[in-house]
């Protein structure tokens, strides 16, 4: 167990290190000059030179890399070129949107998908099953930004039920804020739910084919009890995997949705930062995301151990 954790954490750090090099290197070759962008087209060369000096863009590559790394190790992610405020602050702002959004979507998709998946697995071949699966097929195929488009058009513009986008900030009142996250959540959640429900179904069907299910039946357990006590937990493993992946995706992969609803979230922060060549922001945020994803994977691994004692044994 301890060994397992230590090994995992070692690998995680190694991964992070490699990732940091990758990120930094990629952004080194990215064309475009932040100073230039900030000062605009009529800026004089000396003004730009002066600004580059201020931003420390003239230092040698290695020096900048290491100062970046060591900064991060001390929790200092540098200052945004364009906003000239600490990246931490920026991220802190944005995370209050991205995180709830991700969590809400995950929650929504889970509460939709798992029951549906279990239901159609237990009613395999029934009309309900086939229609749910047909729906999920479509659900998987719908690009979330298209769904978002339609939702905005019908619910926000046509029916005027919810704001079409934007985020008033949590201090504008919990309900108000939540309302503005409603559509984004739905458009993110539904396609995910479609995938999740299929996984759940097939995972459960897989386990229901196992010998120990027959054993349980032979013990006199009812179908329901068998599924509940002997099917579910064993079926959780693939579901957990997908949940992990989906959370990671939702945290970072929401750029497009954030753009549709002009939510000031992490994804959009990076997106803007890239176009403004606010490299330090891009680097730091991407690194944070990578770190988060790694942590999520770690949690998922631990969840495996909780679910499946055999792994505990193997990874002891």
């Amino acid at each position, binding site marked *: 167990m301890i060994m397992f954790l230590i090994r995992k954490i070692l690998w995680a750090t190694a991964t992070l290190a490699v990732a940091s090099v990758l990120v930094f290197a990629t952004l080194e070759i990215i064309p*475009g000059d932040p100073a230039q962008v900030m000062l605009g087209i009529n800026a004089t060369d000396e*003004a730009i030179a002066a600004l580059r000096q201020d931003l420390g863009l003239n230092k040698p590559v290695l020096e900048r890399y290491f100062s970046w790394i060591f900064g991060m190790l001390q929790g200092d992610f540098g200052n945004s070129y364009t*906003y*000239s405020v600490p990246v931490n602050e920026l991220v802190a702002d944005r995370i209050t949107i991205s995180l709830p959004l991700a969590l809400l979507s995950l929650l929504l998709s889970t509460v*939709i998908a798992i029951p549906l998946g279990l239901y159609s697995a237990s009613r395999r071949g029934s009309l309900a099953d086939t229609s749910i699966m047909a729906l999920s097929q479509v659900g998987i195929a719908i690009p979330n930004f298209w769904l978002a*488009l339609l939702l905005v058009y019908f619910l926000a513009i046509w029916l*005027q039920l919810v704001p079409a986008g934007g985020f008033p*900030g949590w201090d504008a009142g919990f309900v108000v804020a939540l309302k503005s996250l409603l559509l984004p959540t739905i458009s993110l959640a539904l396609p995910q739910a479609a995938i999740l429900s299929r996984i759940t179904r097939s995972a459960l069907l897989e386990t229901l084919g196992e010998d120990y299910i027959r054993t349980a039946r032979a013990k006199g357990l009812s179908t329901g009890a068998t599924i509940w006590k002997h099917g579910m937990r064993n079926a959780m493993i693939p579901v957990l995997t997908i949940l992990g992946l989906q959370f990671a995706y939702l945290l970072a992969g929401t750029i497009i949705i954030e753009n549709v609803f002009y939510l000031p979230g992490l994804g959009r922060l990076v997106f803007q930062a890239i176009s403004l060549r606010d490299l330090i922001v891009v680097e730091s945020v991407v690194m944070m995301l990578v770190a988060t994803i790694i942590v999520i994977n770690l949690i998922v691994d631990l969840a495996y151990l909780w679910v499946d004692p055999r792994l505990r044994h193997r990874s002891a």
Partner: protein
Amino acid sequence: MKTMKKLFAAALVTTALAPLVLAGQAIAAKTSLVMGMALEPPHLDPTAGAPAAIDEVVYANVFEGLTRIGSKGEVLPALAKSWEISADGKTYTFNLHHGVKFHDGSTFDAEDAKFSLDRARAEGSTNAQKALFAGIDSVTVKDANTLVVQLKTPAGNFLFNMGWGDAIMVAPETAEGNKVNPVGTGPFKFGSWVKGASVNLVKNGDYWGTPIALEKATFRFISDPAASLSAMLAGDVDAFANFPAPETMPQLRADPRFKVVIGSTEGETILSTNNTKPPFNDVRVRRAIAHALDRQAIIDGAMFGLGTPIGTHFAPHHPAYVNLVDQYPMDLEAAKKLLADAGHPNGFKATLKLPPPTYARRGGEIVAAQLRKIGIDLEIIPVEWGVWVPEVFKAKDYDLTIVSHTEPMDIGIYSRDAYYFNYSSDAFNATIAKLNETTGEAERYALMAQAQKIISQDAVNGFMFQFAKAGVWNAKVNGLWENSPVQANDLTGVSWSD
């Protein structure tokens, strides 16, 4: 089915919540305004950056200059209540208002004014428009409320220049902090800035000038045209001074909730051409292009009819404007012939680098399609501003590009050496030099006309259209500017009628 169910559920939830929120908005709406903007400013100090977004938030609202530009483009007194110009046109004496206070409570006087000007023109200043101050020889404080500016040479547009956002007045104590916490003399104080979302301004209680109606003003940043539309329709935003999606005008106009005002801007939208790069160094090729452009089609297609065709680099609403649109009428045969003469009977390949704005990306597609008709095959390369500026504008590594030149009265750029058009004409330079020394209006206009004709003759760039400003705002809002002679959203006159 599942989807529908969710939609229905969503509908239920939200209908339950709707009343509270709407009510809340209705009351708040009276003295507060939410202004939509396409781009978020990187920071809020107009003296340290070019992006129009900065001025559009703080100019005239938070910061004021000695003079200011009125909605018609006229020069009006601001912190300077009046001024005298010496006979030789080289000495300007400004009389400043009394009892003006910065938002931090410190008083504004000639010392601050001198500081502001000197700071802007100083060595290593990061002012994006240092050119504006290049003409200044010295700045002296006569007394607390009198400032004397000595110019090297007479400059006809000096007062106009002083009205630019880059020439606003700042206090020595707070100047450095203006990027994140702007401290000016204007009717609004800086409130808060939700990065990536909005900037909030609040009424400045002890404003020296005529008090304003609004208690609170919010600038919300919405990069995406579609999002802007939904925001407008959903009532999240009260006004867009310059609505990014012209195609939606008919729809918005039809909606009684909104007032749609098409105004003029200083934005000459042109097909910028690299005048030294073959084959574009051949005037016949450039003229061929001019003949091949169907301006109206471009305006209809890219701007959905918003905009005025131009034949030169000058704002049509300016009294000195000369209509040269018919110098190169749409005529493919003529164009083909010119190309043939220039030695390109079968046309040629070239690149067209397009910056992000809709007018450029859409216009680009149309231009490409039109030039294809005379055998010029353009490869479209979309670029971020962050690439466009260094590559195209600085390094001049481009064939053609499309951009809207929004600075007011900027025909002078054609005389700058090594400007990104790579255009140089002694005749033109002479004209501009003369213009700069002339102060008399009539003579100035004559010279301007001459300048316009020269660049049109040389077909320096593909002159396409004057960018129209599609202002959209809540029908109950009064006092927003219809035109934008300078990059600004002057909210001083805005109020709600009910």
